[in-house]
């Protein structure tokens, strides 16, 4: 199978994203193109639900590469991120060696710590050659793990190699495409950021959000989609603890289509507010009258725009 080529220009990158139903802006296409061309990891930071993870998924899909995902969490260690030995199988191998009276200690040790008994975790998998080309390695929510892991990652991302003490060093012939995401619940150290190309993924503007909505929720009535986007955009200007992300917009639009709503009205909005806002304080702040005022404003703006 021939390798799908990497995009040759910024415009081609933009097309690539568009073909995979990802409505990105030019700044994202630029940084993505550079990351692919320069072989640098891409560091994406932004609020939850703005489509950071989606970029990696789209990339793997559009380029036909394997997606290897490493979800970070507190307490992530080498055995779940890089490799682990298959202890059960090793035990059996040792028992068999005993039963066959193979007393040669060196040989037993050599056999037991061979590639056959190695369980490869995401980071090691990403270094392996792949027929479809170097895979896309997604290191998701790196801010959830601790500094120690970050320091380890520094080494992996610099040389794309991992050392297994019992086996030796595994080095990637072709480095994977690395996408690192962070929700900024913790500042990631500058040393790691320095090695990456940085991009802040913000909330989209109304025009782009409308495009995203129509691409992701195809069956949505035109009027409703405009109202939904305008309402969410207005909501982001309010003084909320957590503004709704694009994921929430899509969820909400999905919920509204399920409910067969054709146009927004205050009662429906109040009833479904839980899809958009995830903090009780924010929901109480947006009481019935506030929702109505906001909705009237949105509707009159839309009418003026027509």
């Amino acid at each position, binding site marked *: 199978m021939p390798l799908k080529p990497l995009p040759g220009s910024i415009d081609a990158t933009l097309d690539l994203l568009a073909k995979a139903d990802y409505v990105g802006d030019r700044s994202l296409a630029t*940084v993505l193109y*550079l990351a692919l061309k320069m072989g640098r990891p891409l560091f994406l930071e932004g609020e939850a639900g703005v489509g950071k993870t989606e970029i990696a998924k789209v990339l793997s899909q559009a380029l036909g590469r394997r997606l290897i995902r490493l979800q970070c969490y*507190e307490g992530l260690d080498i055995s779940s991120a890089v490799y682990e030995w298959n202890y059960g199988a090793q035990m059996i191998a*040792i028992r068999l060696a005993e039963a066959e009276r193979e007393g040669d*200690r060196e040989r*037993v040790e050599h056999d*037991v710590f061979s590639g056959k008994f190695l369980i490869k975790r995401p980071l090691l998998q990403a270094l392996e050659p792949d027929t479809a080309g170097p895979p896309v390695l997604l290191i998701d929510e790196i801010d959830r793990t601790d500094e120690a892991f970050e320091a380890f990652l520094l080494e992996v991302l610099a040389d794309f190699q991992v050392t297994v003490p019992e086996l030796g060093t595994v080095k990637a012939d072709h480095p994977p495409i690395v996408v690192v995401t962070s929700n900024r*619940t913790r500042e990631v150290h500058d040393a790691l950021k320095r090695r990456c190309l940085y991009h802040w993924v913000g909330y989209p503007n109304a025009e782009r959000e409308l495009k995203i909505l129509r691409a992701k929720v195809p069956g949505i009535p035109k009027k409703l989609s405009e109202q939904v986007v305008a309402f969410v955009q207005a909501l982001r200007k309010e003084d909320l603890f957590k503004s709704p992300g694009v994921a929430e917009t899509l969820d909400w639009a999905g919920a509204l289509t399920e409910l067969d709503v054709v146009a927004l009205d205050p009662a429906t909005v109040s009833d479904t507010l839980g899809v958009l806002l995830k903090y009780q304080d924010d929901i109480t702040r947006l009481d019935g009258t506030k929702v109505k005022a906001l909705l009237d404003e949105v509707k009159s703006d839309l009418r003026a725009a027509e």
Partner: protein
Amino acid sequence: MAAPEGRLAENILYFARALRTAGIPVGPGAVLDALEALSVARVGSRDDFYWTLHAVFVKRHEHTLLFDQAFQIFFRKRGYIEKLIASMLPSTMPGPPKAAPAGAQRIQDALFSGLDERDPHKSEVELDARLTVSDREVLQKKDFAQMTAAEIRAAKDAIARLALPLDEVRTRRLAPSRHGHLIDIRRTLRASMKAGGAVIDLKYLGPRVKEPPIVALLDISGSMSEYTRLFLHFLHAVTDARKRVTTFLFGTRLTNVSRAIRQRDPDEALAACSANVADWSGGTRIASSLRAFNKQWARRVLTQGAVVLLITDGLERDADDTLAFEIDRLHRSCRRLIWLNPLLRFHGFEARAKGVQTILPHVDELRPIHNLESMTDLVRALSGAPAKSYDPKSMLRRVA
């Protein structure tokens, strides 16, 4: 071909310098990256040029604004920024007058360093046993507000010498441990291999412990002015000893000075702090400052079991529901909230001020911090379980 490329390199170099002057940390590596990026991107439009440089030079969301302004100025009127750089060059050189006092301070420190290598426990025992009034002892009990300049200097030294015993929390990561409860199969197998697999020598894993991050919120309003400088020294000492300390100053607005305070030399660190802050010794708006913290920073710095030190006298003029709401949210988003109040030095201190009454129900611990002794106590408190006597809830229970 060579000539225009040379011009480009030169321009990027100047632009990088301009960014550095504006406060974006741009290393020489980034300049090389920028040149590489520009050569591979085959930039056609001004926009692409902008985003290409942005991708390489900006590593933090906050810097986007600075970058944008620098870019607009630099590539519209380049002569202007060149002049600007030229005029700024001498000031970036290290000034000789600054070096001398810093050095002198260090020599002084070196002279005194032999005096105190003891841990806080030991010094306390000695204080009790001797009962003679030495200078040091007076210093231990003296209120910071009543100290002379010389005493303050001595206090600073003492603060710098405070040994921080390390507070530890369990993480979910595992480490080899003799008293652990999980079998470390990897090490067990390795050990068994040594005996040819005949003997199984069990090795264990236990939870790894690590110091939690500290977040300090320091009130720098007028009513606290006698204390702020020494507290800053204290926070500098804490920052020096621990990796993860975030410091915020607030009067009427909130300022993050963590980077400034991280400099090695305490005097330089404090100077950098003051340069960052616009509202020294003004009024206090605790509620709005806490609100700003909760909204912008809490989700970024209060992870991994952070301890919050709230250093304020709690004298808020307009204490209302917002203060209660914000302090409650702060309390719910951290592991331990310690309120350090210099006013607690007065024996007759009663929670009569409205601000104090509002904050009190939401803190885990209320402690005095007005002299070296209380500071030493605090250091010990940071390393252990909360002290019963300082628990505001136990105070309430005793009354009931």
